[in-house]
């Protein structure tokens, strides 16, 4: 295969990953690394570097659309970014000392867990919780446009628990080159009791900054290959932009089931390759 054919094939695959990722809300980064390593036989370190770059592109692109709607909470995001960026830096440093086989195993476990999370029903959100003193002192409580119309007020809770989970989300992102949006949403929605809509948009806002913190380390270490990152970034960006456009009309329930099965299958394969040394 020559460079031109390789570029076109990788761009097409990345386009598909970006499209499915944005349609299902599960993120394209999570299938990108398995796609590159299992099908294109790319070294996992190059794959992670390219994936990180595409995560920044989609997050920043999507955030530009979200911020104007008034859902995301810039204070919650900024405070938690202290945890995610330091976590991301830690993860990126760790990646240099972990064997590629171990990386594949961790990736496989993460994929299986993501597939499980996407199938699990979300517990009903509690409303009108009392104020938490730490969150209040940090001025995190806010309002957002509710489904019923008008603004709805919310109080933020369990800041230390959320902060610790965010460090983990950052470390995972830096280690595996993914956005780890699912863990971020889990931290805000489940631990900190922030409304789901605010959690998802604020998470998207944070993903780009988190990924940038580890992308710098990957770039400096020579893990970002321009020939590979070019089709990956452009493909994922185009795919996710198209996905965001058709999201309003599409029926995504079946698609979500299909995509979570794909994630689980890729997870098993990564786990197998990591354990048997085929990577």
């Amino acid at each position, binding site marked *: 295969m020559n460079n031109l054919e390789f570029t076109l094939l990788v761009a097409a695959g990345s386009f598909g990953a970006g499209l499915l990722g944005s349609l299902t809300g599960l993120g394209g980064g999570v299938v990108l690394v398995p796609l590159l390593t299992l099908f294109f036989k790319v070294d996992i370190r190059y794959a992670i570097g390219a994936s990180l770059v595409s995560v*920044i592109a989609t997050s920043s692109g999507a955030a530009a659309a979200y*911020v104007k709607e008034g859902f995301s909470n810039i204070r919650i995001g900024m405070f938690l970014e202290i945890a995610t960026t330091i976590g991301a830096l830690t993860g990126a440093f760790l990646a240099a000392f972990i064997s590629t086989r171990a990386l594949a195993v961790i990736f496989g476990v993460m994929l299986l867990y993501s597939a499980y999370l996407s199938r699990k029903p979300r517990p009903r959100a509690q409303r009108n919780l009392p104020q938490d003193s730490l969150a209040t002192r940090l001025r995190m409580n806010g309002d957002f446009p509710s489904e019923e119309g008008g603004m709805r007020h919310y109080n933020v809770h369990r800041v230390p628990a959320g902060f610790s989970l965010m460090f983990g989300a950052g470390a995972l992102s830096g280690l595996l080159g993914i956005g780890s949006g699912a863990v971020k949403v889990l931290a805000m929605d489940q631990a900190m009791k922030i409304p789901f809509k605010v959690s998802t948009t604020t998470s998207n806002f944070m993903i780009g900054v988190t990924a940038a913190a*580890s992308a710098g380390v990957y770039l400096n270490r020579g893990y970002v290959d321009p020939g590979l990152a070019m089709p990956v970034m452009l493909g994922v960006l185009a795919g996710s932009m198209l996905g965001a456009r058709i999201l309003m009309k599409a029926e995504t329930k079946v698609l979500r089931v299909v995509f979570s099965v794909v994630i689980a299958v890729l997870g098993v394969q990564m786990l197998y390759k990591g354990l048997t040394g085929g990577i």
Partner: protein
Amino acid sequence: MTETADQHGWTDQKLENIVGNLLRTGVSLAALVVLLGGIVYLTRHGREPASYRVFRGEPSDLKSLPGIIRAALGLHGRGIIQFGLLLLIATPVFRVALSIWGFAAEKDHMYMLFTTIVLIVLLYSLLGSGSAF
């Protein structure tokens, strides 16, 4: 604490609009530069065999900030792509820097401090982490 939200509401919304435009511009510009670099790279090296199976790491002129700028100015395809990727990584960094200014306008010293910490981590990663290897 609704008064806090009201008090900050207007400037927050204004700041978020500026941030939204910055992100959009940064990503578009980066994508354009990467595309241009890709065209140059593939016109010159499209027929060569692709090899990403074996990890070699990038040469030093595609790793460090001055090296990338030199390679891009020399109109090397891979150098131009890498410069575009650098613009992309810099976009969220600019966003964070802009937020410091926004919090300063609101005289919110606590969040100015938080945002400065985030900015220092990002700048260290981009500029300082190379020397650790």
